[in-house]
């Protein structure tokens, strides 16, 4: 098998990112959308780490740590929003959450 280079990682990242984007676009359930978002975060992180290792520069890893921290914050607020939506609408179907009233 041929050795694995930077492009392999970047390609995998691209695929993962597009899968995530597809999920965000097609899923109607709020939690499923959040999950797809996490996929996109991971794709980005994968690229960052691959760059950090192949173009020897540790900053990519540091950035990835920051991304994970931000993802955690995003997930917390996202889940809180989902719960709040569920409490008010009794479902979490994003297509039907179209009023501006809480």
């Amino acid at each position, binding site marked *: *098998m041929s*050795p*694995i280079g*930077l*492009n*392999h*990682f*970047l*390609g*995998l990242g*691209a*695929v*993962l*990112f*597009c*899968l*995530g*984007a*597809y*999920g965000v*676009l*097609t*899923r*109607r*359930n709020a*939690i499923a959308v959040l*999950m*797809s978002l*996490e*996929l996109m975060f*991971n794709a980005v992180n*994968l690229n960052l*780490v*691959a760059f950090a*290792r192949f*173009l*020897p520069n*540790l*900053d990519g*890893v*540091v950035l*990835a*740590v*920051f991304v*994970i*921290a*931000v*993802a*955690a*914050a*995003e*997930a*917390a*607020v996202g*889940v*809180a929003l989902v*719960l709040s939506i*569920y409490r008010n609408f009794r479902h*979490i179907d994003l*297509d039907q959450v179209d009023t501006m009233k809480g």
Partner: protein
Amino acid sequence: MIFDPNPVAFWLLAAMVTGCALAVIRAHKLYHAGLALVGTLFGVAGLYGLLQVWFLAGVQVLVYVGAIVILLLFAIMLTHHMMTPNLKTLSTQPWTAAAMCLMLLAVLLGGILSSTWQTAPDTTVYPTWTSQSGFQVAEAIPSVKALGFRLLDPFTLPFEMVSVLILVAMIAALAVARKPPTPEDPAEGCEEVVP
């Protein structure tokens, strides 16, 4: 080189990542999507491991699997009646979305393939096994210590900002998810029985 396990590992992990990611976006039961997400995250953690960034792999598992996914699973449990089958989670325009995503993928892959990178030699990235010297660790493993110094030296401000961000997110999550106070206060202890 007698046998190089690195490509095998990469392709296996890549298959795991994409397969699980597909399951995440197509699964009918949300909980299964959550479990598939765990698979993806472990796959990505494995890739970090392959790149010898073990610290990040650990953080990935700790934060993503241990906190974020658990949080999402909790949300699933709280918002769905147990075992609701055949969740309607797909929107009405999957083909448009698929076309858009494929186009995006084409653009990205095109960009990746057309670029040339000044990459370091593979021996600095992966561990190797050779017939002459057996197991060789990667030449430049980013140590936890180096990463720590990096966080504290040029990235001090972002580091602190992230901690503020997390604090704000925590408070915001609490404020949003809290139950609105009900008009009648829950009774404390014994309430008087009026016969």
